[in-house]
């Protein structure tokens, strides 16, 4: 008697499962003080996954505030499941800046969100905010 097994078929690697490059973010210049606001958002579609390959979170003081208040800029996965970069400052000199360029290699599953938001509690003054992510989206 012979027992035979059907030949096993390895699942295709993620980069061979209809992979697409995705990117989302925003580049805001000369922004006056404002309450906390989301500036961009990306949600993984149904039946897909996304590997976050790069995150950028940049802040620069453009003009001084009088007086300065807390400035916050972050890139997070909604719900706090992952915090990619979180920046808080009260620096108030022109060209004070924060530069974060991160390669997290973090996997998001369908329905998960990565987004950027910021706030500035100062009186007067302006800032530049730039936040982005790059990722590889593929069949789950």
């Amino acid at each position, binding site marked *: 008697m012979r027992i035979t097994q059907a030949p096993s078929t390895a699942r295709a690697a993620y980069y061979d499962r209809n992979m697409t490059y995705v990117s989302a973010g925003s580049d805001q210049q000369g922004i006056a003080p404002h309450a906390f606001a989301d500036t961009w*958002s990306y949600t993984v*579609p149904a039946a897909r996954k996304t590997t976050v390959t790069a995150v950028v979170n940049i802040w620069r003081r453009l003009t001084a505030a009088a007086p300065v208040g807390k400035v916050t800029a972050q890139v997070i996965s909604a719900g706090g499941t992952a915090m990619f970069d979180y920046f808080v400052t009260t620096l108030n000199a022109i060209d004070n800046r924060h530069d974060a360029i991160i390669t997290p290699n973090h996997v998001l599953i369908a329905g998960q969100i990565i987004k950027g938001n910021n706030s500035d509690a100062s009186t007067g003054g302006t800032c530049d905010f730039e936040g982005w992510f790059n990722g590889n989206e593929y069949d789950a």
Partner: protein
Amino acid sequence: MIRIKVKTVGEGTEKNPYTVNAPTWRLLSHDDVERVAIIEIPEWAHPFTQDEIDAMQTTEHPEHGAIHSLTEDHLDKLHGYYGDVYLPPSKPYKLEQV
């Protein structure tokens, strides 16, 4: 790529920021007095063909160009593209146009 004018939700706090109930978008402008925002949805984040986009009604914005108007069918199709898989504390989105 499509640009739409939508209502914002949230209170402008760190725990509840101003945001819009759309899955993937980029903020172009926001009026926290009127509680409306103009957002852009990149071409890879929506299921509409270029012919469908060309057929959408538009209004001209002085700063952001053509603002598209989505019908209920468009909104259903956009929602269908993202399905119903959401993880807590996220909740299903419901885009509200202005």
